[in-house]
């Protein structure tokens, strides 16, 4: 998952805690192994190396691709699981290393879900195109693990994968789960959120950016232009029923750049936006 993953249980005993964490760890590794773009031999690897041939996928992968297709649609093309190739062009290391427009254009030629054919459990990409479920996978894993944890043991638990988290139920030894949202510095929580039910997810990483001529480029890329989304907030945290909804909503808002706050306000979801 590329980040620290933890399970917190409240009350109960060691046996219950062990059972929950074992169920969660097993599921997290399963999802990692199956959908990581860094591993050879999994379904993502098969799709990305198909060289224009159709790849038939299993039901779970199909559900994720359906979900990605819906996101592409409702975001007007801003959320695109084929945009990963742009990351080979852009490196957000705090430098002024802006890529050449030719390189961006070249990468953009291999981006665009509308160019993929997804039907009858078969995905066909054009040669050179790639999919990356990294933008969905972590939140999906949190929700899967939360569902499994809930049925594995009757003990309140919080599943937290690098700040994207969900709870199985209200805690018993205290009134709420308390979640700190990181401020501009890593070790200070800027806000504290009382969470009783549901999930929280945060998008944005203030440490990943480029600066040139006084313009700051966030690491949020708009796959339609190949350029960073201008005026994106430093971080967006959303509370929702599931971690997937929270994570997608914060990502979609981030892709709106300057309009992120207006977009979030229209969703009537509890959210925190930091510029």
């Amino acid at each position, binding site marked *: 998952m590329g980040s620290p993953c933890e399970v917190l249980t409240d009350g109960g005993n060691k046996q219950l805690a062990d059972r929950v964490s074992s169920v969660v760890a097993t599921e997290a590794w399963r999802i990692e192994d199956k959908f990581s773009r860094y591993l050879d031999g999994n379904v993502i690897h098969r799709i990305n190396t198909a060289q224009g041939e159709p790849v038939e996928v299993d039901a779970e992968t199909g*559900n994720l691709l359906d979900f990605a297709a*819906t996101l592409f649609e409702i975001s007007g093309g801003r959320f695109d699981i084929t945009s990963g190739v742009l990351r080979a062009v852009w490196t957000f290391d705090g430098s002024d290393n802006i890529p050449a427009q030719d390189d961006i254009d070249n990468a953009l030629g291999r981006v665009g879900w509308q160019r993929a054919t997804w039907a009858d459990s078969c995905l066909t990409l054009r040669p050179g195109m790639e999919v990356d479920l990294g933008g969905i996978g972590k939140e999906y894993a949190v929700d899967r693990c939360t569902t499994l944890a809930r049925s594995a043991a009757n003990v309140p638990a919080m599943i937290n994968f690098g700040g994207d988290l969900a709870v199985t139920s209200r805690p018993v030894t205290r009134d709420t789960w308390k979640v700190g949202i990181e401020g501009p510095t890593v070790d200070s929580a800027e806000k504290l959120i009382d969470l009783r039910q549901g999930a929280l997810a945060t998008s944005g990483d203030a440490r990943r950016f480029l600066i040139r001529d006084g313009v700051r480029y966030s690491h949020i890329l708009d796959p339609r232009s190949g350029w960073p989304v201008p005026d994106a907030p430093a971080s967006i945290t959303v509370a929702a*029923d599931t971690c997937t909804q929270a994570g997608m909503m914060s990502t979609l808002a981030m892709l709106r750049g300057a309009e992120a706050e207006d977009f979030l306000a229209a969703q009537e979801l509890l959210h925190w936006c930091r510029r």
Partner: protein
Amino acid sequence: MTATTRKERSVSATLAAATCALLGTTAAAPVDAQEEPKWDFNTSLLYYGEDENRVQDVSLKSIIRRLFTDDRTLTLGLTVDTLTGATPSGAIRQDVPQSFTRPSGISSYDVPAGELPLDDTFKDTRVAITAGWQQPAGEKGLLSVGFSASKEYDYLHTGVNASYAHDFNNRNTTVSAGFAFASDSIEPVGGAPIPLTNMLDVGDTSNRAGDQDKDVLDVVFGVSQVISKNLLVQANYSFSQSDGYLNNPYKVLSMVDSVTGDTLTRTPGIEGGPSGIFLFEGRPDERTQHSVYTQAKYFMNGKVLDASYRYMTDDWEIDSHTLDVRYRWPIGDSSYIEPHVRYYTQTEAEFYRLSLVDDSLVPLPQFASSDYRLGNFDAITAGLKYGWKTRNDNDMSIRVEWYTQSGTVPAGQLIGNQASRDNYPDLNALIVQFSYRFSR
């Protein structure tokens, strides 16, 4: 709603449906989250008024709490009191008018025949501040430290306190220990009178001493236990040791004839002075108190019964019992009423005297005070509180209570004419408090 926002709104509905399909679950339980407020402001305005023009207190109190991450809390408090009115001087009623030198020593006042002598110079403004810091200590501990100070015209208090609470047994049991130390200095108006010396004529300050001080150490040990989902019980033992000047510098005792019980008379000086023999009170310079407090809170479908009992005993031989019962009764979702009854009873201090007897065969006692608060009395407080949530989720409440205190002077202390007089100054008071609390 514009077309755009309607379209944007449908994003969240579409996303919710797509998530359900992805996770293969029916709709998840709705999210329940809120940002924890960082600031908590609690302000109250209290009126306390005793009948018959005795003490009136208007008190404005504000508590500001700043919540930090990791359960750390800073609490700051400010209280401003304005006190006016008259308070019993400790002298007894007489069938003739009486006169007294004021505590300042620069003028005198008269009390009509048959009336309880009240000192009407009682006027003060008190400003008190408190500061407290609370933070977890380890997994199960909570550490609190605090500072307090208050200033009145004739009194300066400074204090520090600290306590530690530890949770056991899945946080069902909490054991705590704490202490408070106060160092107070008293600068009585006109100087502190030497105990058991006579009230002198206006202008005569020969029995006035300088500033005084006292120290008070309190130690508390407590345990609270969750018995069931509905019942929480708590018990404390506390010990308090006071050392130093424990007198009320403005209280006197009448010196009476051993047969009639009437106050011995004297002729006031030219500029005024006492019409009788009145001696300033004298109390021991230390006091040790022990008290045990027990409390139970019982929760029944939103209703809360809160009952407590305290027993206190001290080496001044005052024993007291306090029974306090509150019942919180919700009305709808956002308001409640809470009836409250408190009963208090105490025995008199060993050196409590209605008056001192002029008898050449019996020496003056070492200690004596006729302060009615050291006497044998019962008190009842009864009242009602109504609280409600405002539209923006702030808490408001109004509390109205009546306090009535009545006491008796031990029959053995009554001499001659005293038996037919009303000796103990009974007290009735009205308490009205308005509170407002909001968080940001």
